[in-house]
């Protein structure tokens, strides 16, 4: 596989609204009873933003940061979104409506689907490229990077990968497995792109290789560390620290997808 060029990054965690806050040392709060500024969702068209929940806004914020840093034309770019659970809180809201006397909300139904945020972001951006929404539990980050490989090879133009999951639904997941909300984005270009490169990625590949030392995972709470998409945060954190080496994309919870982070220059 060709190397991937990282040309932009973005992130949103509770209490860490952007890359600058992360670099300043903020490491996040928990969604469990702590106050934190809501994601802005500024990349979402105004009317849709009023209806958008925190998860959609967080994904839009991360996507927008990566696109801005990479100087990507969001009206044309292709995008890959990854999430294990998708719009799970909206789906549970619908289930609640089904068991009450309330009529089912058509808008809640339309925005309960896995690809809802991807659709909202593409509509808001006026994008006529194409967007793919992927899910593979703890292997989702690896899957999105593989899909990005294919898109980059086919189109040659940059692609934005955005991964995120809401906090795990209370009552449906054991407390010891519960996770907090996270959104992370990475803008990728194929070799030969003239965009400024932050780092290069080799892989993803299954299992450890001899391509460098294992890079430490990002320092986050245990709840955040269980978010299925935290592997992409680990990649972004390594890039922001200037670390090189191998990064686990699933923190040992999936099939073992890893990626090797290399310096910006070959």
């Amino acid at each position: 596989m060709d190397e991937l060029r990282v040309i932009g990054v973005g992130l949103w965690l509770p209490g860490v609204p952007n890359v600058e806050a992360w670099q300043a040392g903020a490491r996040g709060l928990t969604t469990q009873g702590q106050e934190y500024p809501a994601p802005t969702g500024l990349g979402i068209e105004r009317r849709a933003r009023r209806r958008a929940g925190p998860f959609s806004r967080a994904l839009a914020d991360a996507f927008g940061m990566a696109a801005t840093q990479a100087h990507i034309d969001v009206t044309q770019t292709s995008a890959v979104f990854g999430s294990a659970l998708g719009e799970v809180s909206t789906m549970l809201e619908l289930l609640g409506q089904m068991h009450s006397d309330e009529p089912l909300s058509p808008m809640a139904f339309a925005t309960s689907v896995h690809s809802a945020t991807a659709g909202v972001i593409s509509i808001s951006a006026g994008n006529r490229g194409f967007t793919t929404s992927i899910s593979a539990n703890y292997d989702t980050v690896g899957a999105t990077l593989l899909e990005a490989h294919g898109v980059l090879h086919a189109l040659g133009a940059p692609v934005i990968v955005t991964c995120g999951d809401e906090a795990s639904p209370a009552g449906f997941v054991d407390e010891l497995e519960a996770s907090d909300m996270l959104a992370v984005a990475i803008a990728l270009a194929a070799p030969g792109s003239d965009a400024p490169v932050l780092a290069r990625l080799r892989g993803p590949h299954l299992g450890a290789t001899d391509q460098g030392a294992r890079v430490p995972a990002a320092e986050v709470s245990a709840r955040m560390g269980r978010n299925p998409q935290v592997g992409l945060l680990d990649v972004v954190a390594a890039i922001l620290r200037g670390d090189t080496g191998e990064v686990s994309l699933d923190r040992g919870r999936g099939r073992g997808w890893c990626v090797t982070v290399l310096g910006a220059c070959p």
Partner: protein
Amino acid sequence: MKPAGLLPITGYSICNALGPDRAAVLDSLRAGRRGLGEVPFALPFRTVVGAVRTELPELPVELAAWSNRPTRLAQTLVDQLEGPLARARARWRPERIGIVLGTSTSGADATERAFATFIKHGALPESYEFHKQHTFGALVDVVARLTGITGPAWVVSSTCTSSAKPFGSARRLIHAGVLDAVLVGGIDTLCSMTVLGFNALGALSSNPCKPFSSERDGINVGEGGALLLVERQGEGPALLEGVGESSDAYHISAPHPEGLGAAIAMQRALDDAGMTAADVDHINAHGTGTRLNDTAEAKAIFSVFGSTVPVASTKGLTGHMLGAGGATECVLSIMSIEAGLIPASVGAEPLDPELRIDVAVAPRHGPLRRVLSNSFAFGGSNASVLVRAP
């Protein structure tokens, strides 16, 4: 974008309201026999659905914790495909074969039942495990275990394009050298939330649906699935020639009124194949039976193909299989090529005179070289897949 080259589709399997396998589905397709019938659960309004009426096999004991309707449907589909899968496993290293499936519901039915228990008793059923019963990843894990495929595996979930887009992923992954073969397809099963949701949107018909008819008034939800094996080399019933994808950039649940995104997807599929509109013999339309979709799709088809290519919607037979629709209709397109049959667009009469396309109201017979299959979805996601005779 320059043409990417042909990829053989070396086998397929299918199961839906028309029947549990290829032979039964082809029989219904030839006869124009609808698979629509009563809803197998209580609803506060009338509609019909395309339900799979046959008994589905149980999963092997070691996968019992994952057992639900979609995974049992997966077992049915994998069983049908065993020959091509065995040949692919012999031809390629198992880690060089991937799985990209589409679903929009996955285990939603199981979660609905678990939630009902939660409301009644204050606790989820002991047999319900969220990660094994509900998530999209669970479905793909089961398919990997059933097939012995050890390469990358994931689900695309973009409602009604969920199982059309995997053809694009497969094509790109094989051409990029990431994989040698990809099992693509889609599986969706009926659940109350989907039927109630489309009713809330005012998009559900209370009668068998009538795509492209002046009397059309909505969809019927269907269920089922299809799997197809796409390989770098090999022989099979069809070739994957082109895939086009686009976004409407218009509305979360309505198509662009002029079918702009749909037309872009169809043109991209032709460009990907290095073909022109004149090279296509038949279009298996998205054709849902809603007023908005059929109008927008007809405009899109007219803008790319004019009015001479025969168009049919098979949703009048199967119902709208949502996340399984794209793969199912791709298989039906291949079956059209194999049988030399453009199926009747059942329910289309009386035709809507505003639609300037050639809708096949009766079956047409004759050799078909290429068929284009359209899928369009919430959020303005569009995908068109071009298959051709080998």
